[in-house]
């Protein structure tokens, strides 16, 4: 009882990376709290699913296997999670900050009257003293996230309500196998007792899910542009540099909002988190939401003409100049000198 639960998303029989990252984080939190890590998978044809999940250090795997449960729809998954949590009383519940987790999480938190913090960038365990109520809490989940335009970092706690719920975006936490032979137990969920016909009110008529076109997470070099690129045309320079270097193009939220490039290239707290070998930030000022998504990069080059840009303070190299002048020079040298 009072263990850590991770809701695992599944697409085409494969557990989503974000869920495996949360299992990894959940395992280390469980070690710290000396409790068990439990995973929940809800879908169809899940006979072999344990193989994907247990190596991350999962002690108990709850499986709800029913043809009606895949693909994901809100109500049946909510009913199962709510019933399961009522019975098992987890102290912490984690979900991906994906379209599924962001659809399911708030619904579950509302039904259980428990707090939910979206898009956490860090999860820690710590105590809390409520001086007004004269109460001391131990081992709370600190849900840490940038807030309010990134001007602040907020630490959120749920002192009284359980489970303490948080969502985290893909790529924010690291994915790490605990042991290939980790032994856990499978518990089958009695689906019929938890869902009602009314839960299937929403019907999926068509579904086209594509393999991701842009894979920023796997790129070793990322050339990212911000609002300072000035135009969609100038953004073309970034594609040229990325192609020459064998990298991918990323963008800040401001650049995406300005229509310079597509949303799937957005890096930062509300986009993708990346850790490439080299990150070239072009015309990016470096607000904290953006930095939250890229500060784990091994090397950072900032190109801009604002000596006060926040990005400069986390960069290894700062090139003070106009991106439209600097990038062609980089391309020219690389083409002439690489093997």
């Amino acid at each position, binding site marked *: 009882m009072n263990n850590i639960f991770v809701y695992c998303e599944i697409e085409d029989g494969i557990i989503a990376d974000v869920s495996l990252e949360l299992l990894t984080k959940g395992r280390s939190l469980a070690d710290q709290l000396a409790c068990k890590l439990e995973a929940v998978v809800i879908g169809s044809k899940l006979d072999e699913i344990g193989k994907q999940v247990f190596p991350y250090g999962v002690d108990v795997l709850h499986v709800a296997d029913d043809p009606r449960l895949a693909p994901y729809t809100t109500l049946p998954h909510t009913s199962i999670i709510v019933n399961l949590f009522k019975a098992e009383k987890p102290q912490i519940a984690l979900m991906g900050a994906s379209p599924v987790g962001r659809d399911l999480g708030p619904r579950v938190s509302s039904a259980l009257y428990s707090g939910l913090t979206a898009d956490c960038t860090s999860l820690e365990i710590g105590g809390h003293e409520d001086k007004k109520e004269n109460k001391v809490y131990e081992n709370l989940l600190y849900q840490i996230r940038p807030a*309010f335009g990134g001007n602040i970092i907020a630490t959120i706690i749920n002192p009284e309500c359980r489970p303490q719920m948080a969502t985290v975006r893909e790529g924010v936490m690291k994915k790490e196998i605990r042991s290939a032979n980790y032994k856990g137990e499978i518990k089958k969920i009695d689906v019929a007792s938890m869902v009602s016909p009314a839960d299937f009110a929403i019907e999926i008529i068509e579904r086209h899910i594509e393999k991701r076109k842009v894979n920023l997470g796997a790129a070793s070099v990322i050339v990212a542009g911000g609002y300072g690129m000035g135009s969609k045309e100038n953004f073309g320079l970034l594609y040229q540099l990325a192609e020459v270097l064998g990298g991918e193009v990323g963008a800040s939220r401001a650049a995406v909002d300005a229509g310079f490039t597509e949303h799937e290239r957005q890096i930062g707290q509300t986009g993708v988190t990346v850790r490439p070998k080299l990150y070239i930030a072009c015309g990016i000022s470096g607000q904290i939401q953006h930095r939250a998504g890229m500060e784990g990069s091994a090397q950072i080059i900032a190109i801009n003409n604002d000596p006060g840009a926040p990005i400069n303070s986390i960069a290894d190299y700062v090139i003070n100049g106009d991106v439209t002048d600097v990038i062609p020079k980089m391309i020219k040298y690389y083409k002439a000198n690489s093997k």
Partner: protein
Amino acid sequence: MKAFKIIVLAKQVPDTRNVGKDAMKADGTVNRAALPAIFNPEDLNALEQALRIKDQFPGTTITILTMGPGRAADIIREGMFRGADDGVLLTDRAFAGSDTLATSYAISRAIAKIKEYDLIICGRQAIDGDTAQVGPQVAEKLNMPQVTYVEEIIQADNKSIQMKRRLDNGVEIVKAPIPVLLTVTSSASACRARNAKFLMKYKHAKTISERQSENEDYMSLYHDRPYLNIPEWSVNDVEVDPQQLGLSGSPTKVKKIDNVVLQAKEAKKIDASDAEINLLMKELIDSHTIG
């Protein structure tokens, strides 16, 4: 074909792109008074979807429901200028400091008071928190289904509605029964502009608090044209459990707020000359960072 009763949930948000130093209060909540306030962008996308249904089904009514301080009446007027019929401002100090759950509780109680509705449409998320929680939490409290990430309503009839959802890696076409709550993404069509006729008609639409500063001559206007009264509901106007409201009714608490401190690295400063850029590129190739 029937007309729809639509409630659009909208939020007045601080423009987080222009944040000053006094943006936060000592208790870690937002000092909204210090910031420019705008109509939350995705709520405008939501309003447009509602207006399109109204275009298609004459007699459809659109009510803007917002919770916030007195000045949030601005976005009700803004919605009316674009084609909404009326609005309700839910405002009370008792709501201050609410987290998403306490907010959704208050809003769901106001919706229960409005009583008749076929569709509740709101933006997927607000730019001041980006949580995307209030829509689904409201739907759960009203025990109704939800469809999130809606990009386009494709068709609607008396019993059901079909729409396209825009997900990270694709799309879904789903059919939902009515009533249902929809959250609309920024990839949906932009909201139409203000309409000059509605601007003239609703220019003087005001809440009772706003009217208190008007002079006597004006008061007859609100008597003759009742549509200019924007209802203002306090905690006493909705049936609520006060323990679920505001800061104390919020399960999540802000433990602390840290200002962002940059741990400055020793960055190597380079100018844009050919020589310096060539040197940098050579270094990166030699260290196998690139190539």
